Structures are given as structure tokens and as C-alpha cells.
């Protein structure tokens, strides 16, 4: 029992990171009812952007966020405004192909520019741990991921609750026609929402880049994690993101604890399949 404590703790912390990864995609799904299949690749784009800013300005990864976040906002705004808004409609196939197309373009552009080498956002936090009691260690980086993740979720929640733009976004997702009748330009709103979603992806990308190594093709891996979080936690639910993230991370880490480190991803997928089979709407989702 004692030796379960570490994976459980790690799972909670990692869950926070998983939650931020999923946050942007989950939010956009709640708003435009579309899943952005290029979300993982856009997140990895942030990781690479951070790499660039770190090299160019000699910053540490946290500071690079100040540059990466606005860039990603613009990226998201443009993608939604000029691409995704145009294929929003009844049919689901055009958005699907556009997202896949985007994914291909991103992965291959990153491959061409940055080569297939493994990358990482260096920080001395990576190896630091704080001992808690005799058998438990707090991995500092995971802890930072968790704190930042929760901070982003909280910030987003407040944004949606308190600001005019946030409320307009909620209104547009509740009833698009009603929102337009208020004088809200819903197409613009979607673009702003995507910009914000991309800012959360920027945070996720930088955190992921600091915590794990990344390659141009690691996007889809995180897309699946985001899906897992969304499915377990419930679509469009922010609280669900955190809970779903923690459950998925726990499934992975506890599973790996019992079956071996090579099976970490597998355990996560299996739990995901089980949830899909038993309660597809997730914990906070409506049946």
C-alpha cells in the first residue's frame, strides 16, 4: 500500500497537466460542437515556438510563455476565422479533412524546420524533487504543471463567468441565433474563442515541453490524451477536465505500477475503452 502512494500522487499532479492539454479542445467542442483534430499538433507547435523564443531571447520556458501565448492566440484566431468558420455547418466531413490537413501541414512543417530530433524545453526543475515524509517525493516539475494547470482552468472559468466576451461566447454556444440577435457577431466570437483555446494550448505546450521530450509527430499522442480526458470527464465540462485528467493519469500510472512501465499508455487506453463502453457521456456529461 505504501508504495502506491507515489504513483497516486504523481497521477494527481500529472492529471493537472492532462487537464490543461484537454482544456482548449474541450472548450471549443462545447462552443462550436466540433472536435479539433489538430489540437495536439497545435499544442506541440507551442512547444516548438517556445524553443525558438528560448533560443532567440535566452529566456527560461516560463517567460517564453509571454511570447508564445499571444502568438498562439493569433494562430487560433486566424485558423478559426479563415478556415474552420468556413466549414462550419451540417456536414462533419469538411471540418474533419481540414483538421487532418492542418495536422499534416503542421507536422511536416515542423519536421522540415526543426528536423526529427527529440527536443525538450530545458529547465532545472526537471530533476528536482521535494521529499514529503519518508517514502514520498514531490516531483517539483509535476507539481508546477499541476499548479499552473489549475490556475489556467480557474482563469478560464472566471473569464467565462465575468467578462462580456466570455458571456458572449457562452451565449453563442447556448443559442447561436439568439446570440446574433443580441448584436453578437458569432463568427467573430468563435474566432476569439479559438484564440483563447490556443492560449491554453500554449500553456499546455510549454508545460509538456518541459516535462517530456517532444518530436514533430507527438501531436496525435496528446490528442488522444485530450480525448481521453474529455470522454472520462464529460464533454464541454471544465471541472470534468480536471477530474478526467486525474483519472486518466491515475489509470496510466497505477496501471504501469502493476504491469510495467512499457504498458503505461496501454492501461490508459483500456480504462478509456471501459468508460466509453459503460458511461460514454463521462462523469459530468449529460446522458
Amino acid at each position, binding site marked *: 500500500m505504501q508504495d502506491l502512494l507515489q504513483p497516486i500522487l504523481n497521477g494527481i499532479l500529472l492529471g493537472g497537466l492532462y487537464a490543461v492539454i484537454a482544456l482548449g479542445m474541450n472548450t471549443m467542442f462545447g462552443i462550436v460542437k466540433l472536435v479539433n483534430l489538430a489540437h495536439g499538433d497545435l499544442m506541440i507547435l507551442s512547444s516548438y515556438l517556445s524553443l525558438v523564443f528560448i533560443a532567440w531571447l535566452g529566456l527560461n520556458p516560463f517567460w517564453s510563455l509571454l511570447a508564445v501565448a499571444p502568438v498562439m492566440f493569433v494562430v487560433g484566431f486566424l485558423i478559426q476565422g479563415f478556415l474552420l468558420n468556413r466549414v462550419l455547418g451540417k456536414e462533419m466531413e469538411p471540418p474533419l479533412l481540414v483538421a487532418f490537413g492542418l495536422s499534416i501541414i503542421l507536422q511536416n512543417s515542423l519536421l522540415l524546420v526543426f528536423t526529427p530530433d527529440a527536443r525538450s524545453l530545458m529547465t532545472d526543475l526537471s530533476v528536482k524533487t521535494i521529499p514529503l515524509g519518508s517514502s514520498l517525493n514531490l516531483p517539483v516539475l509535476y507539481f508546477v504543471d499541476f499548479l499552473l494547470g489549475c490556475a489556467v482552468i480557474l482563469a478560464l472559468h472566471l473569464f467565462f463567468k465575468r467578462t462580456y466576451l466570455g*458571456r458572449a461566447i457562452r451565449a453563442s454556444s*447556448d*443559442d447561436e441565433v439568439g446570440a*446574433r440577435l443580441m*448584436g453578437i*457577431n458569432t463568427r467573430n466570437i468563435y474566432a476569439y474563442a479559438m484564440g483563447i483555446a490556443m492560449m491554453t494550448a500554449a500553456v499546455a505546450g510549454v508545460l509538456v515541453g518541459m516535462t517530456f521530450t517532444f518530436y514533430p509527430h507527438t501531436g496525435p499522442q496528446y490528442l488522444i490524451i485530450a480525448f481521453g480526458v474529455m470522454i472520462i470527464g464529460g464533454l464541454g465540462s471544465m471541472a470534468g477536465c480536471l477530474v478526467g485528467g486525474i483519472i486518466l493519469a491515475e489509470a496510466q500510472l497505477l496501471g504501469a505500477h502493476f504491469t510495467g512501465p512499457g504498458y503505461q499508455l496501454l492501461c490508459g487506453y483500456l480504462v478509456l475503452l471501459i468508460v466509453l463502453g459503460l458511461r460514454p457521456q463521462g462523469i459530468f456529461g449529460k446522458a
Partner: protein
Amino acid sequence: MPKRPALKVSELDAHYKDFQALWNISFEVNKREMVSIIGANGSGKSTLLNSIAGLLVPSRGTIEFFGERIDGLLPHETVPRGITLVPEGRRVFPRLSVYENLVMGSYTPKMRAKKDEMLAKIYELFPLLKARRRQMANTLSGGEQQMLAIGRAMMSEPQLILCDEISLGLAPVVIKDIYKRLRQINQDGITIVLVEQDIKRSLKVANRAYIMLEGKVVLEGEPSSLTEEQVKKAYFGIRPA
């Protein structure tokens, strides 16, 4: 000298893809009037309001608002000019609170500054909304939601309110109450165009009425000058033998 009418629709045609929903519609609404547009389902009443509000672009004809052309403008352009639509089915935002719904009504930047002032007025007009201001809109009854929809439409200080079937699905007692307040709003100086299926009620409250059938205006006049016979015939499309 005749003043500019608040709303002037001339020779309006509107299509949904290949289907023509409005045929050569012309009508006028003067400032401070309450005008009823009556017709059965499918007669084109909602299409007409949607065209005025900007949800639909007419294929022919013009719409003038105090002399300014507004046909083809989108809702986010007509709302700042002083036109709001209370849509069919109310369309309140279910997961926003009553307060948040109302506040959405003053979304346009000009109106945001006046938000609190307008909120006070609406709370006065609909005390019920004030009582329920923190509740989620989807927990309100039909009548309450209708009041919310109307209140929301008033938040942008419109000069013209278009009401699309506000009595649909409501109990007669509730409808009476809502119409009372609508009359009050009209008396305060706001021009209202009322679209209804309920002939009696909308004739009682209107200065003038238009009857529509299959996308055309088939009868118009002051309620006092229209006989029940005439109205029924026009409504149902019974042509004289």
C-alpha cells in the same frame, strides 16, 4: 407634412434556397404604433421579421428604418440602430442566469455603459425577473422566459421591437399579463410590431393590422374597421365564391 415612418417595407421578396417565402410585401409602421401581423403557420410572418432583423437577406425590395436602408444588414448592424427581435421560441440562453441573459441584451459597446440604467428599468417593468435574476434561464417557466426575452430585447434601448409569436405555448392568464406589459412598453414610446397566430388578442391591442397568407399581405386596416368575417376569410384563404 407626413413624418418618416419608423419602418417601411417595400416590395419585399425573400427566399429560402429555391422556396419563395415572401411575395412583394409592402407595409408601414409609424412611430409609437403597435402593428399586428397575423397569419397562420407558413404564412411568412416569421420570415418577414427575420428579414427586418437581419437574419435573412431579402432577394428583392427594400426595408427602411426611419428613412435609412437596412435591408441586407446583419443583426449586429441592426441592433445598434435600434431594432431588436424577440424571436419565435424565445431563445433565451438556457445556461446563463437571468441577469446574464439581460446583460447580453446590452452587448453592443454603446449600450454597455447604460447597462445598469436599463437593468433598473426592466426590473421595474418585470419585478419577477429581478426576483429570479440569479437563476439559470432554463429553470424558468414559459411565461417567465418570455418576459426575459422581452426584457432582454429592451436592454439595448430599441426604438422598434419585433415580437414573433410571444403567446405561443403560454397559458391565457400569462399571455394577458405579458400583453399588458407590452402595452406599457408601447405607451412609453417604443414602436412594436407584433406577429401572432392569435387573431382576437392581437387585434385588440393593435393600432393597425396586416393579415398574411402564403407570403403575401391579403388584408390590412384598423381593427375597428375589419370585420371578423373579413379577417377569417383572409387568414384561412377562403376566397369569395
